[in-house]
């Protein structure tokens, strides 16, 4: 089965986050937990719903990734841009690097 990662946005700051194996949400896609079975995906879905109930995140969904040595890689452009930020040039001031939610 295609590998998947669970993503969402933080409720309070809106930032892109990914579900980590510990059940916490992290900013870095490379650290995200990857599910490659239906049960694995269901488990991530349940954890994400729990986080929505706890008001940590909103708008969660699973997306397909491929795997290489550095970790999960998005397949579609939208997820590449969510993971790496806008592609419109590098002269933007760096974003706030907030703590994990």
């Amino acid at each position, binding site marked *: 089965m295609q590998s998947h990662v669970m993503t969402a946005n933080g*409720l309070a700051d*809106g930032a892109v986050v990914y579900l980590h194996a510990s059940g916490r949400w992290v900013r870095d896609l490379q650290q995200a937990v990857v599910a490659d079975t239906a049960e694995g995906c269901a488990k991530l879905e349940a954890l994400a719903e729990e986080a*929505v109930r706890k008001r940590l995140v909103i*708008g969660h969904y699973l997306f397909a990734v491929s795997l290489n040595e550095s970790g999960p890689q998005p397949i579609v*452009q939208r997820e590449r841009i969510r993971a790496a930020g806008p592609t*419109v*040039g590098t002269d933007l001031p760096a974003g706030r690097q907030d703590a994990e939610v």
Partner: protein
Amino acid sequence: MYRYDEFDFAFVKQRVDEFREQIERRLAGELTEEQFKPLRLMNGLYLQLHAYMLRVAIPYGTLSSCQMRRLAWIARTYDRGYGHFTTRQNIQYNWPRLQDVPKILEALAEVGMHAIQTSGNCIRNVTSDPFAGVAADEIEDPRVYAEILRQWSTLHPEFSFLPRKFKIAITGSPHDRAAIRVHDIGLRMLRDESGAPGFEVVVGGGQGRTPVIGETIRKFLPSQHLISYLEAILRTYNLLGRRDNLYKSRIKILVKQVGIEEFRRQVEQEWEAIRDGWQLDLPDAEVTRIADYFAPPRYEPQEAIDLSFATAQRQDPAFAQWVRCNTFAHRQAGYAIAVISLKPEGGIPGDATAGQMERVADLADRYGFGEIRVTHEQNLVLPDLRKADLPALWQALVEADLAVPNVGLITDMIACPGLDYCNLANARSIPVAQRIGQRFADRALAEELGPITLNISGCINACGHHHVANIGLLGVDKKGREFYQITLGGRADEEAAIGDIVGPAFSYDEVVDAVESVVTTYRGQRQQGETFLQTYRRVGIKPFKETLYGTG
């Protein structure tokens, strides 16, 4: 320009308090996201790809230098040091945090600004001619009625949960710089035979998935009846517009479905019933009160023609080019309107840094009357400049990287945020605009090509107005890859037209070459003195198709 009184200040303050409590209830779990979403949208707060996005209203694109400085301060304090001016004359911040939004709104309220109804299924920020009140060709100043409509539509109890969003545009000039024919309601100010002021009312225009040029529902509406007439349109739409299908819920679909004749009959019937008894229309004294805010500033009478302006143009070709491209005729002798292009080569269309916003505010104070406009083409305007001051102003703009002489030219592109920011996007808009800007970086060439509007939308919602561009690019998704459909021959002015789709879409890598091919074809076909649009109308789409796809 309009200036808040105590009533207005208290009102926006109360709105900030209300929204702060709604955010607190959301964070405390008393509101679900499903409940909160329509509430936050009604206050301009979206969730985009990377973060929340806050859209701040700039009523009919008019703001003071003081307000501009506050926008800059917010960009620096709560965002990443820049803001994005939009095709609806608003400004968007791309990175605010939910918990900071009440503080941002408080800071806005202090200078008489807000984010009320910049999204949601309600009456949105009214848009208008960015040259209102100063254009040489103007018949009536639309700002008075734009402000009246702003007030009337603000937290309207009946029209806050319409079937879909509702956009009103108003112009007072024969040359339409407000694209009124592609709005839910478009208003064109004119006078009847007796000289009484009124409006041509256009209804059911729009872009998006189903682009429609609006139809005239009333040729002449006496201006004192504006509000009762709009209430009649809105009520008819609120009751009959479709609510079962997001894509069929705009008023344009209702008008198409029942036909303009029947829609007009229903609206007029409703209007007859409410016109006199409901006391909706404003008393003359109130119209005068608002109109007084828009009295012309104290222009210096022109006593002699200042030759330094002409001399400066002769001596400096770069300045002369900027004057040719970026300045426009003012109604007052000795004055000019200057457009500050936010489209530098390779830049992000519509973006301005906090420093640039402050610079523009300073220049508005120094050379104008402290007033700034935002255009739907995502540029800024200094509306009241003495011609004699233009050389010095231009120098200052050059230093701030704000003197690109490309207004109305191919590099003056409109681009929506697209897939770099927007949650609904199929493809990127900004990097395509950046690459096109670099491809046509030769300023002399761009000017030689003449007026060309090139607009880019990242999806069919058409925030980038691609349907009404001479050259329109629409981002589409093909199996996770970005493609762009090209349309030709659209226009947004008084002769508004929807562009024709030229053929199959081009990939992200091919699209800039495709645009260049369109331009090359135009140059090959062009006859002396023709604009792109004139050539296109004369030769049709065929030659463009042939060079783009080959004759086979």
